[in-house]
């Protein structure tokens, strides 16, 4: 589908292309907010397990920092591999 889709896109007049890129921008905003939400959920679930205090304890905070940093590095690596595979699929067929 990729190529036909992109071909269609290039044949569109300027106004439509603006609309398209506005749409993509909206999707990206939504996606990064969702990513943020699910990162918080993951690190909270993995790092916070006792509820004797109302405030985050020192070792919980350390755990959350490492979790977030590790997840972001992981996510970037997946992104690179994913892009390579997408490119391979596009040139292949």
């Amino acid at each position, binding site marked *: 589908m990729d190529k036909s889709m992109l071909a269609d896109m290039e044949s569109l007049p300027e106004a439509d292309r603006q609309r398209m890129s506005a749409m993509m921008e909206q999707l990206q905003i939504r996606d990064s907010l969702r990513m943020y939400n*699910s990162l918080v959920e993951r*690190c909270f679930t993995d790092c916070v397990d006792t*509820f004797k205090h109302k405030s985050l304890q020192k070792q919980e905070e350390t755990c959350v920092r490492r979790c977030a940093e590790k997840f972001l590095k992981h996510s970037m690596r997946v992104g690179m591999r994913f892009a390579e595979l997408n490119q391979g699929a596009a040139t292949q067929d």
Partner: protein
Amino acid sequence: AANISPDVLDKEQIFGMAEKEMEYRVELFNKITHTCFNKCVDNRYKETELNMGENSCIDRCVSKYWQVTSLIGQLLGSGKPPM
């Protein structure tokens, strides 16, 4: 995307951002609700009421979840949470 047409697109962007923000808040609330239910509430359902232990666990869980949200917001956005 700031230098297109002044009025019309800006309005659409305001609506779009407001919608995304609402969705974000709803999703955050749902995730807190589900996560803290899993962490605090006994799922054998022997009674209908939340007992004192569960209630205090819920309060602390929401508070800590909120702190994790700002902590990660700081890490991501170099100083300020996304919202």
